[in-house]
């Protein structure tokens, strides 16, 4: 019980530190905008820009972070709120298949660096461990154009501001 309370306080302190860091370096990474929930420091959202030269370019994707009380011993739970067509993101739930969010987690990662890893994943999909089989199959069969146009379409539909 005491250790649980200790973990809780430690993770609060660490999240507060990250919060201050985000406030201080707001413009440090223009591709990431991390926002903490007003009333709950264990809930965050992030807006990330789709990386250039990918079908996600020009899109802004929203991520939802749910942080366990044992953070940073345990990784944050992250999912896409914005619909995205990507082999490693579940099309319906937005769940992300990324090793650092599971077995390869290290407490030296921060919410900011997790966002960077997700941007890197958007640019370099891993079709061999797909959560979105359709997307994975397109890439694995070598149909880059098919993958690109589907991903592009969903970026336009879901991640770009509506014109007019």
């Amino acid at each position, binding site marked *: 019980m005491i250790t649980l309370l200790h973990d809780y306080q430690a993770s609060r302190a*660490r999240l507060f530190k*990250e919060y201050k860091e985000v406030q201080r370096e707001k413009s440090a990474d223009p591709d990431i905008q991390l926002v903490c929930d007003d009333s709950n420091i264990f809930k965050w959202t992030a807006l990330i820009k789709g990386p250039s030269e990918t079908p996600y370019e020009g899109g802004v994707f929203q991520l939802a972070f749910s942080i366990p009380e044992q953070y940073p*011993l345990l990784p944050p739970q992250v999912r896409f709120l914005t619909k995205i067509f990507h082999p490693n993101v579940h099309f319906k739930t937005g769940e992300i298949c990324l090793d650092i969010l599971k077995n390869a987690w290290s407490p030296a990662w921060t919410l900011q660096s997790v966002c960077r890893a997700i941007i890197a994943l958007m640019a370099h999909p891993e079709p061999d461990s797909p959560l979105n089989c359709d997307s994975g199959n397109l890439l694995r069969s070598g149909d880059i154009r098919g993958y690109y146009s589907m991903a592009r379409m969903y970026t336009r539909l879901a991640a770009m501001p509506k014109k007019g």
Partner: protein
Amino acid sequence: MEFSGRNDSETCPICLEPLLREAYLDRCFHAFCYQCIAQWSKFVKDKQSQSQSSSKCKFSIKCPLCKTENFSIVYNFDGVSFHRHYVNDNHHDSFFSSNHGLRAQCYRSEAGNLFNIQQYWKYHRYRQKNNWLQNWLRREIQTLTLEEDVDIIVHHIQGVLEAIFTRKGDSKQVTPEPRREEFRALLSDAAMPFLHGRTARFVDELELFLASGLNIEAYDRVYMHHLGISPPTEEARDPDPASD
């Protein structure tokens, strides 16, 4: 002593606060707060032991920064000595008794002027064989190196001591002081490769133990009195370290 290659920011990568009780992993030497890295290593170990039923497997910890495999956490480094916490298990505890702990405390304090060292040299007391020496040496070297198997170092030091004390041409013409100097110099050379920065204190202690003429238990009592520690009661004393 100057420390180079130190993290400029002095921030612990786990809690993101300034380093508190700086600790290092033994292979990659990345720095963390002792509490943070010890907690992380325990967390990883608990998780591993849940998934692998075999308790015999060797635990290591991957550095949170560089993923290098590490086997222990080095902490309380003061320029000369340090403590070491093995990730693997409590094999440290199986030989490290409360007596080792007491000795570690002795080594952190200044050498005491407890016994008459001059007389020891003057009256050639070193010619008497000290029956407790081997056990004493083993315990001291275990304390200083935090290694259990120190037989080689013990034999080496014993051999050097015998050579010094039984040298031919040992005559009354040699005055005590040069004899003492020679003892200290030869012993330092012998111990230095193993004990590094702690060699000088080790030589002090060894000389003190020999000069005392006491057995290990009596020597410890005197030392405890000197440090102002009350001796453990019979019940509270640690049982003999069971080795298996």
